[in-house]
């Protein structure tokens, strides 16, 4: 069986239990459990069609009827709770007759094409017909029926065949209860009832976000993955972890041999509980895309065509180039960049190779450009560089404040959980320059939308703090017991200053003072209050300041150290938490320990058998600057596309052009590879073993389901390079790398593959104090001892609007595409988003004579690029917005080198720009297109992988 057991109704949690008898067997279950579930737990399956355990019971199919001693009639076992002393019969002659009768009616309007049906072997209707012993259908097939209803093939990933629909409502309920989009309904009534996306539209024209919850819930072939229709039923399944965002959903990769048939969200996954989004569920086709690079390649300079070589030649060439450069320019003239898309073990190895084999600390990671301020800010205030909660904690929140994050697009599966809580009554505050979907979408509405100007987060946070302190809303007892008194007193005095009042700060933020006051009162006094934030907080000149301001708010109101509260960074990438944990920073060893700490350094020196530098190395932007001044000449870049994702692309490409050896390890010939000298083909998450750590510090296994297409898993390639450099590494399996990490890192000392196998996943810290891991941090005491308030003075960004550049450009992501789009652009997800658009407020558009669909030239002091305009009131006047999923858009040609004062995280969220109507792509875009074509021609064209 590759499908999990389905107990029909959700598990209930209760302090009280009841004992009942089912077919003579006694079973004890939590109060509130349905008879159906109790029977399942006792080992007896009751026939069912409209019930599935991911949804509340519904009671419409009438197949699960049972007899209860002393009661009249035949209650539905899904909607009837088990009671103390109840005696239930699940089988009797009468029940058999009734069930067969119901089944006959279903089958009288259902095609009898089981043998050629795509659900053959995975169809609950078929199973139930078998279970109830259906032998004839007395009603015939002559009368009115739905057998000729037309299929809807509009969605690229699944098909809707209404002729097979039994109108059990599971898809409609899944869209409501699980996903929270409410895109489906049942139209009409009685015999005419049909599932209707939107207003009897196609799925693509409806509000559907293609999360797949309806497909997963469908008991028949009505909603089926096109991959299953094409390939047939899978024969085995492997549990693994999604490689897209920081939610880290657990999936079952359902396979036929080494071919992936479908990805199905895993019910036991503690981050996603059986839910998924369009990316993880469906957008995995990139893994076998014809653009995959499968052979190592080398070339002398980037104006030469590539030459395919063996792994050995490529690795030896890279190693000798790195050694040559070090001899010529010095030990510190090379470095490496780890990837938040790769596994913990892989990032650990890259930083180990840089420190031990390169002999310097020039290692950085893409977290530099996203959540580095989180690491810094939370360490300073709370003592640990990570979010404080589990995702499930949100179900106990009374007030949810979302700052600079767009969960429904960026972290969709967590957004569904959050929306579930909001529908149940929690209050929502959103602080965002745009009217994101969460502000108002079916059944969810923010009580306060603080629509601030980009770049004024700290002003807003200080004014919230001002209200909390001046109106005496802070939690005096918590602060006295848990925080540093002196620091609190200083902070209290600072925020009380009238210059931090909402009325004063309104001038900067543009948010009405009264709205801020009300939001502050709600956050401080509304019960359990949790803050969720994203890159809208970190990617600013004052990114680290804002992270600390958030921690201050949580500490002052006592909203930390228990379920339902906390400070929750929504980490962008699948393993951005992990890559940071693994010491991918130039100043920190694994576990966030500074390289200048002698005792820590000695520990690593002893284990690794080399002496290590005690001074921090170069950060990514420093590497670029050093390349331009001729002191940094070689780079090993694993799974990150700095030439597209980093700000001020012209500066980045100039720096890359200066380097003498760039080694790019990636699954595609990405933008950075166009400047590279050595290309090492990477392995996708389906092709390797390892672990990812999600935004709630949850370490989950990534399991290899197919052989590495290019021959080596990424960690094996790094190991080979290290060996070629003369620093030996001999790991037989990533579990051995994890054992080394655990032996060197106190927060990971209890982690092992064996334990991961046993528990499913582990939230660090996991050690002798917390052998099972730590779901909620800072309980009873902060990691640093006492919480430390830090003064967060608002300093306006240097990036100011001027007459020349009167608008602010801010950037973000969209549901269907992922970051630089290297993966999602190579999937059917382009059906939803084919190009990056410039969102602009109608007033600004009108001033410039721009209408929907016009080309608009966006220029800043760094550069200019053209995008098509989308005129929308989601924006505020004075602010424009775009995504950065397509390299041709060149959004980062426009963004500047401004960055966070503490961590150099780029200020992607604020760029002063002007927008003008234009006729097509900019000069840079035309030049880039020529360059791309030339570079693609340099790579040998591959046969299709299929």
């Amino acid at each position, binding site marked *: 069986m590759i499908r999990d057991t389905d107990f029909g109704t959700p598990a209930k949690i209760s302090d009280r239990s009841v004992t009942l008898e089912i077919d003579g067997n006694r079973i004890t279950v939590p109060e509130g459990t349905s008879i159906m579930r109790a029977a399942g737990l006792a080992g007896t399956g009751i026939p069912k069609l409209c019930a599935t355990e991911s949804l509340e019971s519904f009671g419409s199919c009438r197949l699960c009827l049972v007899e209860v001693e002393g009661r009249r009639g035949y209650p539905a076992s899904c909607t009837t709770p088990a009671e103390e002393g109840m005696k239930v019969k699940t089988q009797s002659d009468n029940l058999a007759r009734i069930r067969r009768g119901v089944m006959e009616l279903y089958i009288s309007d259902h095609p009898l094409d089981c043998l050629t049906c795509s659900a053959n072997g995975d169809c609950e209707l078929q199973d139930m017909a078998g279970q109830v012993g259906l032998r004839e259908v007395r009603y015939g097939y002559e009368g009115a029926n739905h057998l000729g209803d037309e299929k809807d093939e509009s969605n690229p990933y699944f098909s809707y065949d209404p002729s097979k629909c039994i109108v059990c409502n599971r898809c409609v309920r899944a869209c409501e209860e699980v996903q929270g*989009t*409410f*895109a*489906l*309904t*049942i*139209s*009409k*009534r009685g015999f005419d009832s049909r599932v*209707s*996306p*939107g*207003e*009897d539209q196609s799925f693509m024209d*409806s*509000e559907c976000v293609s999360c797949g919850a309806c497909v997963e819930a469908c008991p028949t072939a009505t909603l089926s993955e096109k991959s299953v229709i094409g390939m047939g039923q899978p024969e085995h399944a492997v549990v693994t972890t999604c490689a897209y965002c920081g939610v880290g959903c657990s999936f079952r990769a359902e396979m036929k041999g080494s071919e992936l048939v479908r990805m199905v969200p895993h019910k036991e996954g503690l981050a996603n509980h059986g839910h998924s989004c369009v990316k993880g569920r469906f957008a995995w086709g990139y893994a076998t895309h014809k653009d995959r690079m499968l052979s190592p390649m080398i070339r002398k300079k980037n104006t030469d065509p590539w030459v395919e070589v063996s792994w050995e030649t490529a690795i030896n060439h890279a190693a000798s180039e790195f050694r040559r450069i070090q001899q010529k320019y010095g030990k510190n003239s090379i470095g490496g960049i780890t990837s938040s898309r790769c596994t913990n073990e892989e990032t650990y190895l890259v930083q180990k190779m840089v420190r031990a084999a390169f002999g310097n600390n020039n290692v950085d990671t893409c977290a530099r450009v996203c959540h580095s301020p989180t690491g810094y800010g939370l360490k300073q205030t709370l003592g640990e560089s990570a979010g404080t909660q589990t995702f499930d904690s949100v179900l106990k929140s009374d007030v949810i404040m979302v700052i600079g994050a767009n969960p429904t697009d960026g972290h969709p599966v967590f957004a569904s959980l959050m929306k579930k809580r909001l529908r149940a009554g929690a209050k929502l505050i959103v602080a965002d320059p745009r009217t994101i979907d969460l502000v*108002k*979408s*079916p*059944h*969810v*509405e923010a009580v306060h939308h603080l629509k601030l100007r980009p770049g004024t987060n700290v002003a807003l946070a200080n004014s919230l703090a001002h209200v909390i302190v001046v109106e005496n809303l802070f939690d005096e007892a918590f602060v006295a017991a848990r925080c540093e008194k002196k620091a609190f007193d200083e902070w209290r005095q600072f925020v009380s200053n009238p210059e931090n009042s909402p009325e004063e700060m309104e001038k900067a933020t543009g948010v009405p003072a009264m709205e801020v006051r009300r939001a502050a009162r709600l956050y401080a006094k509304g019960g359990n209050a949790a803050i969720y934030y994203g890159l809208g907080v970190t990617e600013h000149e004052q990114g680290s300041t804002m992270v600390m301001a958030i921690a201050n708010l949580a500490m002052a109101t006592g909203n930390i150290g228990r379920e339902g509260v906390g400070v929750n960074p929504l980490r962008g990438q699948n393993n951005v938490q992990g890559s940071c944990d693994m010491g991918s920073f130039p100043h920190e060893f694994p576990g966030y320990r500074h390289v200048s700490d002698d005792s820590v350094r000695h520990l690593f020196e002893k284990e690794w058998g080399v002496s290590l530098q005690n001074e921090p190395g170069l950060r990514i932007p420093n590497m670029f600057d050093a390349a331009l001044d001729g002191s940094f000449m070689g780079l090993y870049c694993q799974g990150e596309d700095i030439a597209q994702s980093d700000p001020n692309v012209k500066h980045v490409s100039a720096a890359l052009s200066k380097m003498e050896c760039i080694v790019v390890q990636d699954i595609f010939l990405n933008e950075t590879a166009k400047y590279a000298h050595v290309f090492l083909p990477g392995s996708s998450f389906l092709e390797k073993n390892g672990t990812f750590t999600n935004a709630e510090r949850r370490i989950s296994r990534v399991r290899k389901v197919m052989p590495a297409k290019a021959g080596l898993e990424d960690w094996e390639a790094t190991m080979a390079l290290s060996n070629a450099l003369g620093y030996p590494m001999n790991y037989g399996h990533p579990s051995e790398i994890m054992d080394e990490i655990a032996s060197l890192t106190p927060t990971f000392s209890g982690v092992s593959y064996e334990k991961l196998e046993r528990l499913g996943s582990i939230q660090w810290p996991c050690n002798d104090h917390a052998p099972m891991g730590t779901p909620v941090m800072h309980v009873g005491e902060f990691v640093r001892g006492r919480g430390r308030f830090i003064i967060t003075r608002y300093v306006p960004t240097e990036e100011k609007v001027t007459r020349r550049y009167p608008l602010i450009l801010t950037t973000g992501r969209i549901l269907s595409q992922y970051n630089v789009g290297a993966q999602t652009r190579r999937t059917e997800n382009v059906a939803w988003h084919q190009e990056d658009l410039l969102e602009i407020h109608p007033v600004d558009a009108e001033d410039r004579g721009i209408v929907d669909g016009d080309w608009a030239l966006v220029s800043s002091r760094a550069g200019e690029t053209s995008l098509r305009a989308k005129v929308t009131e989601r924006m505020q006047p004075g602010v424009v917005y775009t995504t950065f999923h397509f390299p041709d858009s060149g959004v980062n040609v426009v963004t500047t080198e401004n960055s966070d004062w503490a961590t150099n995280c780029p200020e992607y969220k604020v760029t002063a720009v002007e927008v003008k109507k234009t006729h097509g792509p900019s000069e840079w875009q035309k030049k880039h297109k020529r360059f791309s074509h030339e570079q693609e021609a340099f790579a040998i064209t591959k046969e299709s992988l299929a």
Partner: protein
Amino acid sequence: MTHEETVTMIVEEMRSLPGAMLPILHAIQDRLGYVPKEAVPIVAKGLNVSRAEVHGVLTYYHHFRQDPPALHMLHICRAESCQAVGGDALAEHAKNALGCDFHGISGDGSFSLEPVYCLGLCASSPAIMLDGEVHARMDSEKLDSLLEEGK
């Protein structure tokens, strides 16, 4: 006033009622004679529900029309009492006279024909309702003359 404006006004007036969707749909139909397609997104936005949810409710009740009705609306009672004293024949007669079935529009486009289940006039069955006005103890001739007047 456009349909969008009318619907927007109705939604604004009524959105805070408990269970506002049905009263709003009724008000729209009372005002416009039907619930036009463009009303669905406006009602959805006003009540902060999805378009699908509005569509589900709208199509569930036969009472709600999604197309414009004819100039006149003829409801014929199909409930037990009327059926017992000639309602069936009356209904057949109406269909023939108008040249359409229930839920249809007469050949000349002047009448919409709808069934209704009890007008509360059982003591004087069979009953009909023409443009909101009830008529009792109906027979074919009386109906013909009413229809003639209506034209």
